């Protein structure tokens, strides 16, 4: 199986503080990988390194076939990114947002046009083509933001708490979009605070105090911790945290 992410003793220190403590894991092509951890466990720092936004203090990692320390520009071309905080330009229309992100990734005009039509049709947003992004309901925005993040057909897409604050129906529809992307061969790397969403992942890692404490399928994790659901697993693990930060 092709490895889309692999890390080797990946570490990030800020002064004496070890935010990420030599983590090692691999993500396979077409996988939904859940990246969990309490606030301050080091998730965001790790994710920033994987996206080529921050240089590791030591250790190494490959994302989409490129080295995260030396080939950051290549990585950025081959990944998609979506977070709840930044998703779309509010004051641009729906199609303008799509055109912008297509342009950023150097797609051709014709390609952008075709893809825009296809996405709007898939989402059932044809009527909203000329709507300003800020006028869309939150759930729609998030669906659109996800489509934008995989607009250039990246090998892997990083989703940072993509479903915060949306209603349960929209949240599930969102996950159906994720499944659809996976069927196209896109790998999904996702963080979330909703533990039921952890169950939607093929494999889940839980970070505690900068280290990856466990990594397995949700089913195996539940069995190993004798837990009814992922929330139980998480509670048992995260309570072990000793880092003063929490």
């Amino acid at each position, binding site marked *: 199986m092709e490895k889309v992410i692999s890390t080797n003793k990946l570490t990030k220190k800020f002064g004496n503080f070890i935010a990420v403590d030599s983590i090692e894991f691999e993500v396979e092509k077409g996988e939904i990988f859940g990246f969990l951890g309490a606030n*301050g466990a080091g998730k965001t720092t790790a994710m920033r390194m994987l996206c080529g936004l921050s240089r590791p203090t030591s250790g190494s990692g490959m994302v989409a076939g490129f080295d995260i320390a030396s080939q950051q520009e290549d990585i950025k071309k081959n990944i998609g990114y979506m977070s709840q905080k930044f998703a779309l330009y509010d004051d641009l229309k729906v199609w303008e947002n799509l055109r912008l992100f297509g342009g950023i990734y150097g797609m051709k005009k014709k390609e952008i046009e075709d893809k825009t039509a296809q996405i709007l049709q898939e989402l059932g947003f044809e009527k909203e083509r000329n709507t300003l992004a800020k006028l869309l309901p939150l759930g729609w925005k998030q669906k659109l933001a996800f489509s934008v993040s995989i607009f250039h057909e990246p090998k892997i897409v990083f989703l940072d708490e993509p479903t915060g*604050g*949306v209603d*349960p129906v929209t949240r599930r529809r969102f996950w*159906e979009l994720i499944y659809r992307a996976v069927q196209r061969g896109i790998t999904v790397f996702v963080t979330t605070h909703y533990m039921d969403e952890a169950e939607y992942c093929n494999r889940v890692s839980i970070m505690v105090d900068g280290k990856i404490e466990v990594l397995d399928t949700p089913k195996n994790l539940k069995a190993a911790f004798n837990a009814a659901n992922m929330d139980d697993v998480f509670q048992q693990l995260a309570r072990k945290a000793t880092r003063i930060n929490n």
Partner: protein
Amino acid sequence: MKAIQVNNICLNYGKLAILKEISFEVERGEIFGLIGADGAGKTSLFRILTTLLLADSGSAMVEGFDVVCDYKQIRKHVGYMPERFSLYQDLTVEENLNFFASVFNTSVKENYYLIEDIYRQIEPFKNRRAGQLSGGMKQKLALSCALIHKPSVLFLDEPTTGVDPVSRKEFWGMLKKLKQQGIAILVSTPYMDEVSMCDRIAFIQRGKILTVNMPQKIIADFPHKIYSVESNNSYEILKQLRRNSAVRSVFSFGDTLHVIFNSKSEIQNEKNNIQFKEISPTVEDCFMILMEESN
């Protein structure tokens, strides 16, 4: 006298209706949950009840005081924790707490017993700037600040958003204790798993309250039979069931699918290749059905 009484509150923003005829009551010593997605109108409702915003019509009383005329009285009696726990990032933990105490003409010493349980956990970092705290600790500090003047009604607007599951659980534990002191708590949340911690809840969707009841009662009143399907390839089965006209709705819930049929007779046909198991619904199932019906 109820702690909070809301009668037919309406609020419009231009032509857009933010709140539509909202009515409910909260008793003393009750945790009342306002459950809904972002943009449902929860924050506007909080602002009306904390006298920050005027409704277009309807009335509301907090501790027997009218939110419009007696706003000054209400401001003495309530504690409010707005969204994104507002603190002064450049003040230390202790300075924040002292400041809010003096704002309410009291001192930390006077009501320390009320916040002791919560504050003890962040006390080791009392000289750290609030901006450098983790989400869970910020949340605890914000709660301490909202409690420092011993309010009789507590308004918490999404206190657990963006906070990890462990901190969330601890937070609800604290609310339980406060409730025992007779404090009425109105709390909003987008997390369905927190619903069971509330005495009563209101589902709110696009400015409208869909139902107000105890969580157990809402589950008991669920009008449909609900089945779960376990499978290793749930997305394929989900797509398959979506195409089936006998299926009223199907959604994934953790590692299973929850299915509701249009009529019972047709279940048999489906059972041939998929294993259906009747289950009791969760609160989330109830909300989803109510949402769908209100559309």
